[in-house]
C-alpha cells in the first residue's frame, strides 16, 4: 500500500507538470492577450511593446514558463493582472465558497439518489421506477443555467420567498441563517444534475448485484430482507457510485462555473471564467494548478477507497 501511494505521488508530479505546460501553451496560443486588452486605440506599436515588456511578456515563452515554475517552487503563484493581489490569496478566498456549495450539492444529491436508487431497484418497472426514470431524464438533460434562472424567477422574483443570488443579504451582517437561505437554491440546482445520474447508477448496480448467486444464498439462509439489502447488496453496489462521485469531485473543487455564474456565488468557477475572459495569465495558471493538484489527490483517494469498500480489490504499485 505504501509503495503504491509513493509511486502514485511520483506520477502526480509529472502529471501536474504536463497540465501546467499544456495550460501555459494553450493560453498563450489563444487569440488576444492582456497586452491587447489593455491596449488603447491611440497606442502605437512601440508603446504596446513597452507595455508587454513591463509585464514580462516580451521574453521567450520557455523563459516565462521557467520563471513561473521557479516561482511555484517557492509557493508563489504571482500577482493577478486583474486585481494586483496575490493569486494564492484570491484562490484561498474563493475555495471555501466553492467547497460549501459543492459539498452541500453532493451531500444532497447522494441523500436523495441512494434511497431512490434502492427503491427503484427493488421493484424495477414499477410505477415509481418509471416516474423516477422520466424525472432523471429531465434532470440530466436540463441545462443548469436554465433551471437556475427558473428557480430565480419563481422563488425570488415572483414569490419572493428566496433571495435571488449572492451569498448574503446586501448590506447586512453575515449570519448562518442568511447563508443557508442563499445556499439553498444553488445547492438544489447543482444537486439536481448529479442526483439524476447517481440514482441511475445505484439502481443499475443494485439490480445487477441482487441477481447474484450470493444474494440468493443469503436469502435462502433466511436472512431478513432488510439485512440482505443493506449488508450484502448495497455495499457491493457502491463501487460504480464511488467512481461517479470521484468524477464529480473535480467539478466541486474547480467550481461549478455555470451555477456560480447564475447565482453570483463567489467561488472558483466564477473566478476561472473571469480570469479566462481577461487573459489574466497568472490567475489562470494558478487556478489550473490548484484544481489539478486537488483532482489528482482526490483520484488517489477514490482508488484507495475501492479497496476499503470491496476487499476483492487490491492495490499494487505499477
Amino acid at each position, binding site marked *: 500500500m505504501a509503495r503504491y501511494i509513493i509511486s502514485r505521488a511520483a506520477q502526480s508530479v509529472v502529471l501536474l507538470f504536463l497540465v501546467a505546460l499544456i495550460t501555459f501553451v494553450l493560453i498563450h496560443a489563444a487569440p488576444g492577450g492582456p497586452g491587447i486588452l489593455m491596449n*488603447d486605440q491611440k497606442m502605437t506599436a512601440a508603446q504596446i511593446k513597452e507595455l508587454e515588456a513591463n509585464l514580462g511578456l516580451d521574453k521567450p515563452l520557455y523563459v516565462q514558463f521557467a520563471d513561473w515554475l521557479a516561482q511555484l517552487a517557492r509557493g508563489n503563484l504571482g500577482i493577478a493582472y486583474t486585481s494586483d493581489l496575490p493569486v494564492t490569496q484570491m484562490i484561498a478566498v474563493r475555495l471555501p465558497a466553492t467547497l460549501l456549495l459543492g459539498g452541500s450539492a453532493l451531500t444532497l444529491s447522494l441523500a436523495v439518489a441512494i434511497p431512490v436508487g434502492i427503491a427503484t431497484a427493488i421493484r424495477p418497472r414499477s410505477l415509481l421506477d418509471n416516474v423516477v426514470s422520466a424525472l432523471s431524464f429531465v434532470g440530466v438533460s436540463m441545462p443548469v443555467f436554465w433551471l437556475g434562472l427558473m428557480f430565480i424567477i419563481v422563488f425570488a422574483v415572483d414569490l419572493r420567498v428566496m433571495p435571488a443570488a449572492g451569498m448574503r443579504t446586501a448590506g447586512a451582517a453575515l449570519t448562518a441563517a442568511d447563508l443557508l437561505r442563499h445556499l439553498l437554491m444553488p445547492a438544489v440546482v447543482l444537486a439536481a444534475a448529479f442526483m439524476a445520474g447517481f440514482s441511475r447508477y445505484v439502481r443499475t448496480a443494485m439490480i445487477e448485484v441482487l441477481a447474484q448467486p450470493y444474494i440468493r444464498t443469503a436469502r435462502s439462509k433466511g436472512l431478513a430482507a432488510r439485512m440482505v439489502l443493506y449488508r450484502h447488496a448495497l455495499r457491493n453496489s457502491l463501487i460504480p457510485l464511488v467512481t461517479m462521485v470521484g468524477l464529480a469531485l473535480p467539478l466541486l473543487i474547480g467550481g461549478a462555473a455555470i451555477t456560480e455564474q447564475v447565482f453570483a456565488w463567489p467561488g472558483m468557477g466564477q473566478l476561472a471564467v473571469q480570469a479566462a475572459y481577461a487573459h489574466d495569465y497568472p490567475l489562470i495558471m494558478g487556478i489550473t494548478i490548484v484544481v489539478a493538484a486537488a483532482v489528482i489527490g482526490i483520484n488517489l483517494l477514490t482508488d484507495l477507497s475501492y479497496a476499503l469498500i470491496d476487499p476483492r480489490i487490491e492495490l499494487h504499485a505499477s
Partner: protein
Amino acid sequence: MVEGRRADGARRRGVDGNRVATSKGVIPMSDNVYRFSRRALLARAAVLGGVAAAGGSLASPRTAAAAAATAPTANALLFPLISNPTPNPVTLPGGLSSILLNKNLFGQLVRPDPHTDQPVPDLARSWEISKDGLTYTFHLRDVLFHDGQPVTAGDVKFTLDAIMDKKINATFRTNLGPLKTTHVVDAHTVQVSLEEPYGPFLTMLQYNIMILPEHALKGQDLNKPTAFVEHPIGSGPYMWKEFVQGDHLTLVKFDKFWDGAPKIPEIVYEIIPDVNTQIAKLKAGELDFVMVEPSQIASISGGGVQMSYANQTNYYYLGINDQNPLFKDPRVRRAMALAIDKQQILRNVMLGHGRLIASPVSPPMRWAFDAGLEPWPYDLNKAKELLREAGAKMENGVLTLNGQPYTFKILVDIGNPTRKQLGLIAQQQWQALGMQPQMDFEEFNNWYDMLGNLKFDTAVEWWITPNDPNALQGGYDSQHDGPDAQHPNFDDPVTDQLFAQGVRLSTPAERKPIYDKLQQRLKDMQPDVFLNFPNEIRGFSARVHGFGTVGIRDALYWTYKWTLG
C-alpha cells in the same frame, strides 16, 4: 485609453452585455395572478431569453407580504458589477468594474458636470490656461484624503508623473497627449506644461485621471500595488470599508468630503457576473441599478423600476476594412450607407432610444456635434447609381468589381442581442445591392483580435469615447498602425489634417469650425457606415433619486448627491 473596447469587452459580458439573452426578451403576460401551472411554466420557459423574460407583470398576490423578507437595507445603494474591481486608477486592472468603483473613491482635478458632461471644478478650485495654450495652472482646494492627510500639489505631480512613466502600464497615458512636465508651485498650486497646445486637455483630465496619495503609494510598484489596493485611500466622497472578493464591496461615506457629506451612508457593490441575474435581483428588490439592451426594456420596466435613458458618448457602426479592394472606393462605402435603412434600425432595434448620426461625432460631444448635418438617407436607387459610377456590375447574379465578387463576411461578436440584430439587418439590406454578405459570429476575444489585425471585411462595432471629438483620431487618422480594434485602416490626408488642426486649438469656439469640416468629410468618405448614437438604457429601483441624464460612468461622480427613499 478610450473606455470603449477594453472596458466594453467586459461591459458586453455583463453590465449591459448579455451572453444568454436572445433577441426576444419580451413576454406579453397580462394575467396578474400567477398560477404555478405547467402551462404557465412552459410558456415562460419558452420565452426565457434570460430572466429578462421574467419581467414586468408577474407580481403575485403574495409579493407584498413576502417582500419584506428580502427588502434591501435602507441606508445602502446596491450597485452591480460584473467582476471584481481593483482600486488602482493608474493601470486600471479590472476594467469597467474598476472604473465604476473608482469614481466614488478618488477625487480628480476636474470632473464632468452631471447634466452637460463638461469639465467642472473638483479638487481644482479654478485654473488658468496660458495664452499660447501650453501651460495649465490649477489652484487646489483645502481637501483631505480619507486618512486625514491634505491633498497637495505634490500628490497631483506624483499622479501625473506616474501616468507618464513608461515603466508603468498607465491606461490613460495617451489621453494626456503632449503633457511634458508637472511643476509644484506651492502646496496648493500646480502647473502643467504641454509640448504643444492640446485642446482636449481638460476633457481628458476629467476622464478617469484620479489623484492618488503620494504618502500611501511611495515605494510601491504602481503596476501591482498590492498593499494599496487592499486599503485604498482617496479623496472622493466614499471611503473603503470592506471587500469580500467575488461577493461584495462596501464603501462608507466620508464625512469630511469637501462638497458635503454624502446623503446615502453606504454603497454596496454586488458582484454579479450574469446580467440576467442582475435583472432578477433588481426585480426582486435586491439591487438598485441595472444596465440593459433595448430588447430587455419591456421585461424590466414597471413594478418598482424606473427606466432612464442617458447620453453616453457612444455610437454604433458597421465597420469596414477600407484596405480591402472591394471597399477602397468611397463611392462604394457611401452606397453601402445609402442601402441601410437607419431609421428602421433606430425604431425597431434601438426601440427609438437614440438618434441618427452622420459621422462618429455624437450628441454628447456637445459643442462639437453638428446637429444640422443630415445622415445619408435610405435610397437604394442612389446607392445603385454610385456603385455603377464606381464600376461595379452584376455578373452571374452577384455584384462584382474588377472581376471580384462582393461576397464578404459581417463579423459580429457572439451573445449580444442588439449587435446580432444589426448584423442580420445589414446582411439583408446589402443583399438588395446584389452583394452576398455572410454572417460570421465569433467569441469576443477572437472578434477583437480579428478586428485589430484587420482580418475582417465588415463588422458590427460600437465605440465609447471621452466626449471630445479628438478622441476619434485613433480610429480615423492614418497614423495608428498597431493592433487596434477601432482602426478601419482609413487613409485620408484631409481627415489627418483636420484632426491635426483641431487638437492644437484651445477653445471650443476656435475648434468648432474645424470639427464641422471633419464631420462633413467623414460623412462623405464613410470610412464606416455610421448607424446611430444609442442611449444608455438603465433601470433604477424606484427609491433612487438624483442620478441625472449623463451616462453611468459620469453620473457616478455625483452619487454623494443621490438620495434613497
